[in-house]
């Protein structure tokens, strides 16, 4: 069971809004990215981006391919999802026309255009699935697509070297198989982030899981770690779950049932307040969207900057 939101085939709240439940095709850029760039121009262009809880890597690959990012690092605690993400990166590279596969990014603009997206999906999916992927080109300096996108198996707590969670059993909700245990015991692929390492850090529908598993105490520690890892002009993007989503998750995951009642910091505005206490300020906001029945169709997003 995906107790950390590490769902297989998860597409985020964006998919529900645009396609009524079905995952969108790989040639469609995640609409959340387009909204973010509309709010904060140049959010990814020539920036070092970290995607925490990258899942299958769709967002990270889109940023690396279409938004001219200098580098993108996607981390997720689920090794299966990281495998998928790497495979997706290879797949997306294989779709580029030959002139673009020589180790050059397709876009040099900050926002993808219809034309650039079309050219990035030159080769049919059928060919790639039938004949296999194209091998990566030799490494270049600076790294260009696909070498500007990397994925690593790591959870946020380990990655940011956060203090021990309030409940040490929190990490054992998913009883891993012996094979998974072996994988978990292997050393992490990444080291602790350096100070001022990233320009943009994405936390898309991630914070709820950290919050539920580790309680309110994790928030200030986590935001402080983000503050350290972020450059002075850097940005943190938070896609926040509404409170009813916390309650729903607690119903699904037996281990979380007791913990949801202990949480005091409820609602997006209170989470942002905690971030403010750790040296962040709100730079931009993308409104939450609800349908006629009051259900959330698109989660709200907040872009934070260093004060």
């Amino acid at each position, binding site marked *: 069971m995906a107790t950390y939101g590490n769902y297989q085939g998860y597409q985020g709240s964006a998919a529900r809004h645009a396609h009524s439940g079905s995952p969108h095709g790989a040639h469609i850029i995640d609409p959340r990215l387009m909204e973010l760039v509309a709010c904060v121009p140049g959010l990814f262009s020539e920036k070092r981006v970290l995607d925490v809880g990258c899942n299958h890597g769709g967002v990270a690959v889109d940023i690396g391919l279409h938004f001219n990012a200098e580098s993108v690092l996607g981390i997720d605690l689920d090794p299966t999802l990281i495998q998928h993400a790497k495979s997706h990166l290879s797949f997306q590279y294989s779709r580029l026309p030959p002139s673009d596969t020589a180790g050059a990014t397709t876009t040099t603009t900050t926002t993808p255009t219809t034309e650039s997206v079309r050219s990035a999906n030159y080769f049919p999916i059928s060919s790639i699935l039938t004949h296999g992927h194209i091998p990566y080109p030799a490494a270049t300096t600076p790294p260009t697509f696909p070498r500007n996108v990397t994925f690593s198996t790591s959870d946020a707590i380990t990655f940011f070297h956060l203090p021990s969670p309030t409940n040490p059993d929190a990490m054992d909700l998913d009883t891993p198989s012996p*094979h998974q245990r072996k994988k978990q015991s292997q050393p992490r692929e990444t080291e602790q982030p350096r100070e001022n390492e990233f320009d943009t850090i994405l936390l898309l529908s991630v914070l709820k899981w950290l919050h539920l598993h580790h309680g309110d105490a994790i928030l200030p520690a986590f935001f402080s770690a983000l503050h350290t890892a972020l450059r002075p002009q850097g940005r943190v993007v938070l896609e926040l779950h509404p409170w009813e989503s916390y309650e729903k998750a607690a119903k699904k995951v037996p281990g979380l049932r007791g913990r949801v009642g202990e949480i005091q910091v409820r609602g997006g505005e209170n989470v942002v307040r905690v971030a403010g206490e750790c040296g962040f300020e709100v730079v931009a906001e993308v409104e939450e969207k609800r349908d006629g029945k009051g259900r959330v169709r698109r989660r709200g997003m907040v872009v934070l900057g260093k004060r």
Partner: protein
Amino acid sequence: MFVPRQVQHHTAGHPSALPRSKASRTTPPARASALQQQAATAQSSTTTPKSDIDPVNAKDIVLSLEQLLGSFNSHTPWLEERRRTVDGCNDYIHLAALMECPFFHDTKPVLSQITLRRALAAAPSERLQVSADGYHIRYTGNRSQLFDERTVYIEPSSVGLTTHPGKVARLLAATLPSEFLPVRYVNAGGRAWGFVTLSADVTEEHTDPETGIWPENWIVMTKAEWLRRDNHYRAHREAVQKARQAAQLEERMSRMEIDSTKHRTPSPSPPQPHDYDPGLIVHLTNLHSGINKPTISSFIDRSVDRYLRRLSKSKSKSAESLNSNPPEKKKTMVYIDYAKGATEAWVRQTTREDSELIVKALEKRRRRMTDNEDRKGVKVKKEEGEVYVKGVVLQGEEEGRYWKKVREAMGRKGKKGKGDANGGNMSSSRKEEEKRAKRPRQSSGMGGEDLVIKKGRFEEYGR
């Protein structure tokens, strides 16, 4: 006996018991009208309300049925075997047969006879005729051929859409000009792509997204363009792979060159008499570029095994063989030396006889490795030339040079702790055994990671 309702639905009037049932074959037209009346009365009392099915879903199902029955497609032979004589017409098909058709295998929710009947009632079709009993249908129009000129390749905006041919047809019907309609057939290649055959020829101009005749965010190209890009992709991939192999080979050679220069002694001694057992190394060429140790090992083992088997068969037939011993089974290979992506390899045996046996077996069987058959191999025809995997036992200077490189390589590896106590390398089979022994037991349920990660599976998802 308790029979679940789902099973009851599937087995009721099940038509897959071939050949045609006696009852359906011999229904005379005179009796058909009586049956029709009976069915009409039965229907009026037992049918479920039409409103129980979503009208959009009903339309999708009917459009799918029209595609399946109204064209000469890959399922046509399957359907032909299941046609029945009902109401005097011999081309009716039972709904239960349609449910079973592979065309609907990926359709969700799974179809039932009730669903089909409700769909046909809620969205009546001009081209589909329902029998009097309500459980058989036939196509009344002329069935169309699936011409390439009328076929387009599509990548819809959402994944899984192509597995619902009716939905694809409905979405296209909403945007395409009437000349292209109706949609004749949707062939789902995968969850994210497929081919759609329309009613008129489609040109490059038509597929331009600027025309606005296609649903939003769909990638559409003519079949000719798809074929061109597919060929382009294959050629491009092959070129990239070749360049990569060449670079790897070059790098490997230069590394070996540097290593041999480093280890060269200032005053080279005259060539020593053999300090190795000659005739143990077989040089393999024409291998497949995607080789690895298991594939080479399997390919050779299989070749030798089949060769020996044939040899023993032919000998047992002849009278002389009665007194001769059966050929000895080949020993395990000691070492396989290959580079990733290279098309050649060196295999070391324990005896000269084993090396010769491998060479003979490869020469006799004349098989080449291919993408899918790199273990089994594919028989090479005479006209294809000498493209099969060949083996040559190294001799003379060539053999001496090879052994020298091996010794140097072994010396280097020895420092890293590899190799056995005698300075030799661990055999690949032993390594495999050790690996297997250390491997943790896979969970039997869904938790086993190997069950989840499958190459190419993810590509399907999300695209």
